[in-house]
């Protein structure tokens, strides 16, 4: 029996070793070809996102008879598990949704195909997309692997009602980190019990990236390892520790139990200011309306610094094409449609970040039925875009190693289990071990 099973195991080893889909329409082709046949599309999201994405897919199928789309979706965490398992089996769907943060894990292992030929041939039109956004989809080799349809950004969310009651003004445009800290510290004594001035953000990677960019620190070196110094991080974490110990922020244990941004502290009225993804403003406002309908939220860009005004990195959400795709022309056409078609953009209603295509974005803004918070999300995006934000190329291993290790090691310091210096050391050794491989 063991012998038989060993034979099965060997069979599988050889299956994995060989590339099973050898007759894909050559990836070097310009992606132009007949738009017909079957493609698979996979994305992450909940119920609303699924509905909207499916609606757009239906529209595409209607416009291109002869095309069938096999749709697969999952929640955020399950999506990556499934994607990686499919990648291991070399059976990814043709069109894969992805972000800059994970992109290079996949490009490094040649799981996706470069999209430059399709852009050059016009199969995927990026002329309506700002250059910064197109660049956000490049891999470490400089080629474009992901075409973004929705651009997300991190912002600072502020409960304006609470701020007003505490007698502080929302920071003005162009404010810097010192202004931000004094904004929080001034408000804290006057806040009602149970409401903190800020969430404990020392362990949130995105906030650190914003601080580092504003202060001109290099994020990643050429080989993908950390580009900033231990002193930089120590200074940053010490800043947050000072705030935490002064009770300006949430205590560490409370911060550790927070659920996602749409149910987080800002959305339940427990903090005055915190970092949230820009496109969570609407969701958080909806939740807040249930707890305390008299309060309102707004978002402002991250604090600026010596190196830039409102330096917030853009995070591109978009589609890429898998290497084992057998139907590249149709996949390219789908991506093009999803990103650029005005009717598709209208249906999708900027559900996953601000539309990358400027015309689609403007059409959204011109739409009278747009909610006030959604309009603000899109306006803020335009404001950030106009400030020429830097483009971050995330090295392989970023999402898996950097983010988890950053949060965990800051928490070690915040819970008093390590000193800040020890936590920084630990983070550096863990991150450098996992990045850029």
């Amino acid at each position: 029996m063991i012998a038989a099973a060993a034979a099965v195991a060997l069979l599988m080893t050889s299956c994995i070793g060989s590339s099973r889909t050898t007759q894909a329409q050559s990836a070097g082709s310009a992606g132009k070809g007949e738009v017909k046949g079957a493609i698979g599309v996979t994305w992450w999201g909940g119920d609303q996102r699924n509905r909207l994405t499916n609606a757009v897919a239906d529209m595409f199928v209607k416009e291109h008879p002869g095309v069938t789309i096999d749709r697969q979706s999952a929640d955020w965490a399950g999506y990556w598990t499934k994607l990686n398992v499919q990648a291991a089996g070399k059976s990814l769907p043709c069109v894969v949704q992805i972000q800059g943060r994970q992109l290079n894990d996949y490009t490094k292992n040649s799981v996706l195909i470069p999209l430059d030929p399709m852009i050059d041939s016009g199969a995927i039109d990026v002329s309506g997309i700002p250059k910064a956004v197109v660049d956000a989809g490049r891999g470490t080799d400089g080629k474009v692997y992901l075409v973004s349809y929705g651009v997300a950004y991190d912002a600072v969310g502020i409960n304006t009602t609470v701020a007003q009651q505490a007698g502080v003004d929302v920071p003005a445009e162009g404010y810097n980190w010192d202004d931000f800290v004094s904004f929080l510290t001034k408000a804290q004594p006057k806040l009602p019990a149970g409401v903190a001035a800020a969430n404990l953000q020392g362990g949130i990677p995105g906030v650190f990236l914003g601080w580092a960019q504003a202060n001109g620190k290099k994020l990643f070196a050429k080989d993908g390892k950390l580009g900033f110094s231990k002193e930089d991080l120590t200074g940053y974490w010490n800043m947050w520790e000072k705030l935490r110990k002064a009770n300006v922020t949430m205590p560490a244990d409370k911060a550790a139990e927070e659920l996602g941004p749409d149910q987080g502290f800002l959305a339940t009225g427990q903090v005055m200011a915190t970092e949230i993804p820009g496109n969570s403003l609407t969701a958080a406002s909806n939740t807040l309306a249930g707890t305390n309908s008299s309060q309102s939220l707004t978002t402002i860009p991250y604090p600026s610094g010596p190196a830039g005004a409102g330096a917030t990195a853009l995070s591109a959400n978009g589609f890429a094409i898998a290497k084992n795709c057998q139907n590249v022309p149709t996949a390219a056409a789908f991506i093009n449609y999803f990103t650029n078609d005005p009717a598709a953009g209208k249906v999708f209603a900027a559900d996953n970040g601000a539309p990358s295509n400027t015309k689609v974005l403007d059409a959204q803004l011109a739409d009278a039925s747009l909610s006030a918070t959604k309009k603000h999300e899109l306006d803020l995006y335009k404001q950030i875009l106009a400030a020429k934000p830097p483009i971050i190329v995330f090295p392989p291993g970023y999402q898996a190693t950097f983010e988890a290790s950053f949060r965990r090691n800051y928490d070690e310091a915040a819970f008093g289990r390590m000193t800040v210096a020890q936590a920084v050391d630990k983070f550096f050794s863990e991150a450098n071990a996992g990045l850029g491989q």
Partner: protein
Amino acid sequence: MTSGTTPQQTLTKTSAGSEATPRQLRWRSRRARETIAAYVFLTPWILGMVLLTLGPMLYSLYLSFTRYNLLSDPKWVGFANFVQMFTADSRFLKSVGVTLVYVLVSVPLLLVVSMLLALLLNKSMRFLTAYRVLFYVPSLIGASVAIAALWRLIFGADGIINQVLAVVGIHHDSSWVGSPHDALTTLIILAVWAFGSMMIIFLAGVRQVPRELYEAAAIDGAGVFRKFFSVTLPILTPLIFFNTLMATIGAFQAFTGAYVVSGGTGGPVDSTLFYTLYLYQQGFAQLNMGYAAAMAWLLVIVLAAVTGFFFWTARFWVHYGDE
């Protein structure tokens, strides 16, 4: 008895050339028939093993000696994964510690609670069916995504436990689920909260005990405790053994509770980093599937040893009906 053999005790030559009495022949052919019957009965399982189970298992054993990131092919590295686990990975050691605590605390609690309730719900009383259902329901939702929210509701900084404690004068302001030294406790409570399935197994076993035995014991003057220790417990030992072993294996492999409540991170600063959760992080998040496989096979060895130990002790306290 009357199997049609001739009454003479003549010796016959068997095909092997030795001589055997008809009785020995009957015995041997009965053994052969039993063996054939056994393997016929085992056919589905054997097929399942060969085709579905063993292949992936052996492949994962192979993977444990490789470096494999799922996106490209595995590369052989020998024992490097195992060496790294024990010498260069503090999170590994942490996950072992967390898991051991979980096993040693939750398994006895589970056994005691489910046994007590099985005995309680064995008596006939009104609403018995309703009670049985109600005690069972928590175990149905113990693995659901809703638990993340529910456990914060109870064990959060503003949660029910803290409110109740405040009523009796104890001021506990910190979050149980967000504090490193309390988070594991909330997961142990989750495990015990979902005791329903173990209770069902005990209940099914307890119902098997023949009533005459209790009656005989009562006639002999046995009270409640005596009845339990002399009648119920011995008969239940096969199921106690089963539940203890299964609970232990399950606790070593515990995953879903920690995954749901901590959001896949292993809780505040790895305080709920169960062994298989860390394994999952290594395999699927950090794309170190070879390392994850090595961790998995180390667990196999540990569980094999634990199981072997359990079976060895079983002969001292487990009474089967067929002996």
